[in-house]
């Protein structure tokens, strides 16, 4: 009895030491060399390549870096319904997110090779400048100062937004021109207030503004009947309408009083990467015009139309100058569908947001969505 216990007490420290030693060894083991990390496929020791940071870099380096890394780093918003927000399964959804996926599909042929980086309005430009993201697809308004002095290039416009008005249906107002003398709730300290003043002065109408520190406060004041109208960007109006007490009693007026073209942007100085992002966007819009959808992209490969054939890479070598395969656009379309599909799926009239195409319809249908041809 005593002997057995002494034997056990001699073996125990040995076994214990072995277990602890093995555990510590395992802790410091590196991951498998090709081990796919979840979503990112990042190798444990993979450091960003030199030259990643700073706006000045040789042409083509972003694509090479992205390829070496195995995924695209895409800056998105920290939750804007329909543009970029996580759903209740934890997946990112929205137009801006779909665009990230389209670029990933064009580059890798696999739309899942994206790492999303949620950025707030303050950090978004720093993140793009410092190379933390390759692409900022985050409802950012294309303005001259951002394009020129901040050192970015906008690849195009993915959504034509503008400041609009939300009014009660019961008020009978159907156009912004009828807002003479109205009390308007808005957030203070933004360009919203300025646009409002400009618009009403230009139209020679009077108005009273009820400014609030926060958007939520302005919205709840409007909901409680303290103002006749509430104003912010139209995309936001549609989303915020959903959290009013009775959403169906309110409408978003068709007019917008400012121009807010939202688009994806990249760092200046890498024309190839810029072209990839720009032409991915154009391809999505061209595809809608040509009737190519995610469902019929494979049948359309054999289409007789030369425009469709060039888009899908069965004719010409349009992917090569971008450093991509010639089926780049077909890959993007297969993953997210054309621009119209993206719009309808994320913000369109069948979603709770219910945003009509309006300005974002194709140029042939009365909108301003127009992409240069692929040829």
């Amino acid at each position: 009895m005593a002997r057995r216990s002494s034997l056990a007490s001699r073996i125990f420290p040995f076994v214990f030491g072995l277990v602890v030693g093995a555990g510590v060894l395992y802790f410091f083991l590196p991951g498998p060399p090709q081990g796919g990390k979840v979503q990112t496929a990042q190798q444990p020791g993979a450091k960003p390549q030199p030259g990643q940071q700073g706006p000045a870099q040789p042409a083509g380096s972003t694509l090479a870096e992205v390829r070496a890394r195995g995924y695209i780093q895409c800056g998105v918003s920290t939750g804007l319904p329909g543009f970029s927000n996580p759903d209740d399964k934890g997946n990112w959804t929205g137009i801006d997110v779909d665009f990230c996926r389209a670029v990933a599909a064009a580059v890798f042929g696999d739309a899942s090779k994206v790492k999303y980086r949620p950025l707030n309005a303050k950090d978004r430009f720093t993140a793009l400048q410092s190379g933390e993201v390759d692409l900022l697809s985050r409802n950012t308004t294309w303005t001259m100062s951002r394009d020129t002095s901040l050192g970015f290039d906008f690849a195009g416009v993915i959504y034509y937004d503008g400041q609009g008005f939300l009014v009660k249906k019961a008020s009978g107002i159907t156009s912004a021109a009828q807002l003479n003398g109205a009390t308007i709730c808005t957030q203070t300290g933004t360009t919203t207030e300025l646009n409002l003043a400009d618009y009403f002065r230009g139209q020679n109408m009077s108005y009273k503004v009820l400014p609030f520190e926060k958007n939520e406060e302005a919205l709840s004041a409007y909901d409680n009947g303290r103002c006749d109208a509430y104003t912010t960007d139209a995309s936001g109006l549609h989303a915020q309408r959903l959290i009013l007490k009775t959403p169906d009693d309110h409408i978003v007026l068709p007019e917008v009083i400012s121009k807010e073209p939202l688009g994806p942007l990249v760092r200046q100085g890498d024309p190839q990467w810029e072209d990839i992002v720009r032409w991915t966007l154009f391809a999505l819009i061209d595809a809608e015009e040509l009737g190519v959808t995610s469902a019929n992209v494979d049948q359309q490969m054999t289409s007789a139309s030369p425009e469709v054939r060039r888009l899908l890479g069965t004719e010409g070598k349009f992917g090569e100058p971008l450093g991509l395969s010639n089926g780049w656009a077909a890959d993007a379309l297969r993953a997210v569908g054309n621009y119209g599909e993206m719009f309808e799926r994320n913000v369109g009239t069948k979603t709770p947001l219910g945003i009509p195409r309006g300005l974002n319809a194709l140029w042939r249908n009365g909108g301003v969505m127009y992409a240069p041809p692929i040829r």
Partner: protein
Amino acid sequence: MTVNAAVKWLKRNLFSSWWNGALTLLVLYIVWSAIPPFLDWAIVHAVWSGEGREACLGPGKGACWPFIFANLDQFAYGRYPAELRWRVDLAFLLGLAGLVPMLIPRVPAKLWNLGYLVVAWPMIAIVLIAGDRPGLVGVDTDLWGGLLVTLIVAITGIVASFPLGILLALGRRSEMPVIRTLSIVFIEFWRGVPLVTVLFMASVMLPLFLPQGVHLDNLLRCLVGVALFSSAYMAEVVRGGLQAVPRGQYEAARALGLSYWQTMGLIVLPQALRSVIPGIVNTFIGLFKDTTLVLIVGLFDFLGQVRIQLSDMHWSTPQGAATGYVFAALVYWVFCFGMSRYSVFMEKRLNAGQIR
């Protein structure tokens, strides 16, 4: 008899004078006008089941609980891959397995238990949650979120700040000028800057200063920031305890021939720490709630995850935000109240000999 006693009690405690009577009525009125409407909103007229926002729409409906139920996984794990979430569960179960016996005074082998909790378990948790080792797929910290991040930040802050804080407090009272100066500079620097600034510097500015090619994980940067920040606060709490230990205790220890570390470890610190338990727990609770600030650097802790899920249009409802925040408040309250009650229990136990 009992009615009489009740009236007597009421008279003595609630209506002893006209002024106290008025205050009692006022408080009763406030409670009456606040509590029933809240309960009505949160329970009676609340929506308890549904598949989307439509369930919660309509006049007179209260809290939209299905939004919480549908997003519970997101609130707990963020975007941590669903098929790997068992690893997080396992890590925290192993932590609980070490924590519960640690908290019950009667369970023996406290030293081994402590060793497991502060050395072995963090390593196990890192391996399980981060993965990226043979046989375990790696999960990027970008995907971590929700309560997982809240607990990681809070636990790291608590575990790191305690020993660091004690060392800094001892350093500040040290007789060696260099160590004393360094401790004072460290403490005053970290106490002098707001946590928001620390996190912002760690997350946004640091990458601009680092040499090219050096990449530090965003979460890791914030963890270091939080740990250093909270250790400065902890140091001052511990220093308060050290000052409360009578000089005679030091002198007696010296007279017995104990070395500096023996004096501190066996005589001074046990007394000092016991007297500042409320302060220590106060710091822990503050730290736990401060973890919500990591939202500003793009990490989605529990509160941040609740907020971001509100932007899902399929769950956009008038009551959505209020429901989410009430739920978040409840969860934070449970954690903080738990810590607070345990500290009361420990105080009573440790001060058993001093109750007058």
